């Protein structure tokens, strides 16, 4: 961050712009840049090795960020930065940070290609609605997976039978209880110092972040999330979250989710919007990390060809031009207990590892149903480590991802949502059921036969 008070000043004193005009200008500017720079989505190259196009995406993202700035929809004022400010923000952004405490701390890196480190694997179920009775066992299923480096929580949807509502008092209670249970899960797994990523998942507002800014809940070694509103917008609620992290201070991460087919246009435009969002949130929010989540206009999953390509080209763009700690969401259409989720998991793990990204974990069924478990997170991590150790190239990765995509693409229109946690895990022992393990083993053998060299 250059100076957060300067961000706040610009949010109040910047040029006035109507939201509709901002949206249309974004579309025109992005379309023009896509054409001028020759950025094109190739559906046969989901994991890209195209350095020239990656550089064009970075250049286009920079020009888009400079032209548009970030619109505060609370004040309808533009928060604009000049190029020297954006470059300075990139320079001072952390390139490596130790997340968590003691022996459980793990490095989160601004990844580059072939620097000798695999991604940092986040495990958990972001966005997933969880009831009180399953919250702790679900989180324990992730905490028990040794290959998971950091953890992210699901969302607690009810307290004592009452719905948790946006901006309501129970958001405070839900976020605090969420943190207590995640920390208990970590302690029971013997990993009390593990970093909790995007703490306060049970709240959509600044209330949750404020409620947990206390060592009893979110430690300064944990992080919380500050979304960029689509596209390239913010508001006082988001800026209040920044203020909380600024003074507390915990680690912070952005969340940027350009709509593929939205105001940025198609995949090429969405890539530029994503790159611009990373640049602007680095300068305006001063976040330590970024969560990438391009959204297909019809299918929310990140496992579509278009969304995986957007992540891949943006990962490559930043790895080559301005490495930052980027974590890509890995939201799947399918749910736990199905082969489909494991095919999607494998494709996303391969694509992200070979695009210099870290992961912000799986969101099974796009975070709609509580059909998630630690086993698919284990599989994600195993694929990441295998791909890293065998030094898989982007071209090899792309061939594999295309094969995997063919196996699960039918699920976009006819999703196999699978089963809830309580039906795929023994909830007393917190271990997968034999049936779910058998499916996992079968798919793992299949993926191994495709060329992924697992360690065990």
């Amino acid at each position, binding site marked *: 961050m250059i100076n957060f008070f300067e961000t706040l000043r610009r949010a109040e004193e910047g040029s006035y712009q109507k939201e509709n005009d901002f949206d249309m200008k974004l579309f025109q500017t992005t379309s023009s840049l896509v054409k001028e720079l020759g950025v094109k989505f190739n559906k046969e190259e989901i994991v890209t090795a195209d350095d020239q196009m990656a550089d064009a995406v970075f250049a286009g993202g920079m020009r888009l960020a400079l032209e548009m700035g970030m619109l505060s929809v609370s004040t309808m004022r533009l928060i604009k930065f000049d190029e020297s400010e954006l470059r300075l923000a990139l320079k001072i952004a952390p390139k490596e940070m130790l997340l968590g405490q003691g022996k459980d701390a793990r490095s989160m890196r601004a990844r580059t290609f072939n620097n000798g480190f695999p991604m940092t694997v986040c495990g958990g179920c972001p966005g997933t609605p969880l009831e009180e009775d399953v919250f702790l066992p679900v989180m324990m299923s992730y905490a028990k997976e040794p290959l998971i480096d950091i953890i992210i929580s699901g969302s607690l949807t009810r307290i004592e039978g009452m719905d948790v509502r*946006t901006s309501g008092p129970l958001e405070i209670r839900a976020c605090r209880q969420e943190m207590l249970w995640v920390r208990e899960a970590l302690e029971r797994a013997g990993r009390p110092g593990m970093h909790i990523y995007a703490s306060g998942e049970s709240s959509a507002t600044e209330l949750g972040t404020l409620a947990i800014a206390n060592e009893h809940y979110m430690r300064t070694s944990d992080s919380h999330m500050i979304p960029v509103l689509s596209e390239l917008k913010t508001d006082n609620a988001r800026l209040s979250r920044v203020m909380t992290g600024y003074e507390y201070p915990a680690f912070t991460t952005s969340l940027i989710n350009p709509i593929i087919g939205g105001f940025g246009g198609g995949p090429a435009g969405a890539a530029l919007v994503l790159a611009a969002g990373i640049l602007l949130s680095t300068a305006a929010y001063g976040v330590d990390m970024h969560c990438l989540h391009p959204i297909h*206009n019809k299918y929310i999953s990140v496992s579509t060809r278009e969304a995986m390509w957007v992540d891949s080209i943006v990962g490559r763009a930043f790895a080559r031009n301005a490495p930052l700690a980027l974590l890509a969401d890995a939201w799947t259409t399918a749910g736990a207990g199905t082969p489909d989720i494991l095919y999607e998991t494998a494709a996303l793990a391969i694509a992200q590892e070979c695009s210099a990204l870290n992961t912000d974990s799986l969101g099974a069924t796009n975070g709609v149903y509580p059909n998630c478990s630690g086993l698919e997170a284990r599989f994600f991590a195993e694929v990441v480590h295998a791909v890293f150790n065998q030094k898989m190239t982007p071209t090899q990765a792309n061939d594999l991802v295309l094969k995997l995509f063919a196996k699960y693409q039918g699920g976009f229109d006819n999703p196999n949502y699978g089963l809830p946690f309580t039906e795929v895990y023994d909830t007393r022992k917190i271990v997968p059921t034999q049936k779910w393990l058998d499916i996992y083993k079968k798919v793992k053998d299949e993926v191994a036969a495709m060329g992924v060299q697992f360690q065990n």
Partner: protein
Amino acid sequence: MQVHKFDNKTLQEIYDAMVEIDSDKAVMLVEKALQNNDDVLQVVEALSKGINTVGDKFEALECFLPELMMAAGIMNDSMALLRPEMERKDLSVGTSGKVVIANLQGDIHDIGRNIATVMLQASGFIVYDLGHDIKPDVIIDKALEYKADVIGLSSLLTTSLPFARDTINLLGERGLREHFKVVMGGAAVTPDFVQSIHADGYCKDAAQGIKVISQLLSGK
């Protein structure tokens, strides 16, 4: 994607202008059709088929949200030109129904609702878009004011879903439940939830929303 062909050259040009999202040309052609005393209802049909093709292209990622919104603008501008002539000739194209649409209280996400609004307009519905973060009583008051047939509720946030239940309950408490069909869509919404609150329909996406609402209004 269905591409339409017309025997009449002007109608074909109007359809093509809509599909190409050429606003100036489309409006100029509609004015020309009026001057030539062309069949007004056929002009409306050419425009409607054109905007439906744009909707199909959007679904296929061949055009994007701003273009979909521009197509809706062409439709509105053209109808403003055609309406006086239709009234003079006592013609009616009818509508598919009136829909009040809103994002639930606490939810500030606009884009999905924007898509649904334009797609519904393209299918002949009159849509009153109330915006985001709208309280249940305001939604109901507006539905009454606009004499809506359908209330469309959208949410991307799980924590805003309880306000959908509130809306249904409040409709019941005010003795208005039978006045409106209530449908829901958005990333956080599931068919099970819609059923649990006794809403009338679940819409996976905008295209399905059109089908669901049409079926509800036709009583199928």
